[in-house]
């Protein structure tokens, strides 16, 4: 996953969790479009706005490979947005909110977390972030620093293809997929049940996590999902 900062020509307000459409046009006119969630907070830079996109290299991905292998500083990109609205967060103090991200699904959730910090919101937030290995923990330093400095921010990083030996001495780690027991345990540590849970990641990840939450009794309408297909 790589981060790209794009400066927008005009001030473009957006809400934490929204995405932009990127459209690339080849010299012969062929076009391809994909959607990418903004990972920066709405407060990052106003007037004109700049946005940070976290783009994961997809095998055979024609747009992600352009960003990872071809784009250079200063290149112009056609953007449209902000788009979407159901997967956005605004503080609903003082109830805790849970966010569960798989891989690049961290992008819109990072925007929400940064927005929460920017507005000094104190409502508890639990982030469960699933990645394969230590090297895949994008935003690691920022998230760990926030977890140390903000008593209301709780972080669990679930490493699915790593073991305790290679990640020894690192706090906030669990060495398993995010399973029902891990969620149940994390929720039991919250003072009150979460008012809402946001889940973002690949389809099968989101499907599994949403089912765990339903099994644990979370109300259907307390769960918002953003699924990256396929």
């Amino acid at each position: 996953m790589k981060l790209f900062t794009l400066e927008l020509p005009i001030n473009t307000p957006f809400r934490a969790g929204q995405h932009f459409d990127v459209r690339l046009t080849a010299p012969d006119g062929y076009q391809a479009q994909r959607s990418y969630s903004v990972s920066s907070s709405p407060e990052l830079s106003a007037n004109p706005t700049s946005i940070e996109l976290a783009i994961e290299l997809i095998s055979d991905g024609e747009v992600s490979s352009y960003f990872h292998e071809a784009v250079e500083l200063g290149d112009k990109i056609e953007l449209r947005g902000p788009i979407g609205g159901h997967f956005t967060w605004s503080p609903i103090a003082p109830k805790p909110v849970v966010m569960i991200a798989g891989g690049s699904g961290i992008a819109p959730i990072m925007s929400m977390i940064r927005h929460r910090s920017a507005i000094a919101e104190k409502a508890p937030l639990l982030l469960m972030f699933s990645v394969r290995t230590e090297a895949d923990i994008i935003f690691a330093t920022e998230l760990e620093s926030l977890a140390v400095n903000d008593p209301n921010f709780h972080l669990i990083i679930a490493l699915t293809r790593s073991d305790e030996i290679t990640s020894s001495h690192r706090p906030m780690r669990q060495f398993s997929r995010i399973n029902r027991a891990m969620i149940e345990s994390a929720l039991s540590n919250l003072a009150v049940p979460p008012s809402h849970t946001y889940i973002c990641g690949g389809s099968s990840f989101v499907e599994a996590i949403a089912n765990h939450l339903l099994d644990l009794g979370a109300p259907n309408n307390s769960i918002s999902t953003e699924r990256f297909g396929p």
Partner: protein
Amino acid sequence: MINNKFFGRKRPEQGRPIPPGQYLEDGFPVLSAGPTQRVDKATWNFSIEIGDVTVGTWTWDDLNALPQTDLHTDLHCVTKWSKQDTDWRGVTIDALLANAGIEAPGGFVMASSYGGYTTNVPTADVIDGKGLLVHTYDGEPLEAEHGGPVRLLIPHLYLWKSAKWIRSLKFMDKDEPGFWERYGYHMYGDPWREQRYTND
């Protein structure tokens, strides 16, 4: 705007064209705004309403007792993927209306799902064989994550109009926005005219 270092890897091969801005997908991605709904066939029921009046309700067995229609079609999702040559079985909205003994009112329809999802379409786009309630995909019972036991299918519009876990159709005189339409997605959603967002 030309991106000089972009050449594109997914150009469609010779074959049927796909709508502008789409790419071909072999899999069947799942994109829902919330959890997959847990709808039991034994308790599933579907109703048609005209304004505030319910004019017909059907159980799972009722639906299966109606004339079944097979449909071979392409799907187009607003998130840019298209999937060609999908096979569905279900019941046309025409057959449901006939079974209830009513003519489709003009105007618009609001489709509502278990779980609270809604989406709006003109009446003309669900009648004359254009809209179906489907329960079978590729010869197998429709999986819950794809909208099973029963979803609406209106394949000539972007797929968000084909509400999963369908529960009711409500005929209305005036058009009203559904779930995604309120968030800035197009009121009609024709992929061939690339009507993704409100002012497209």
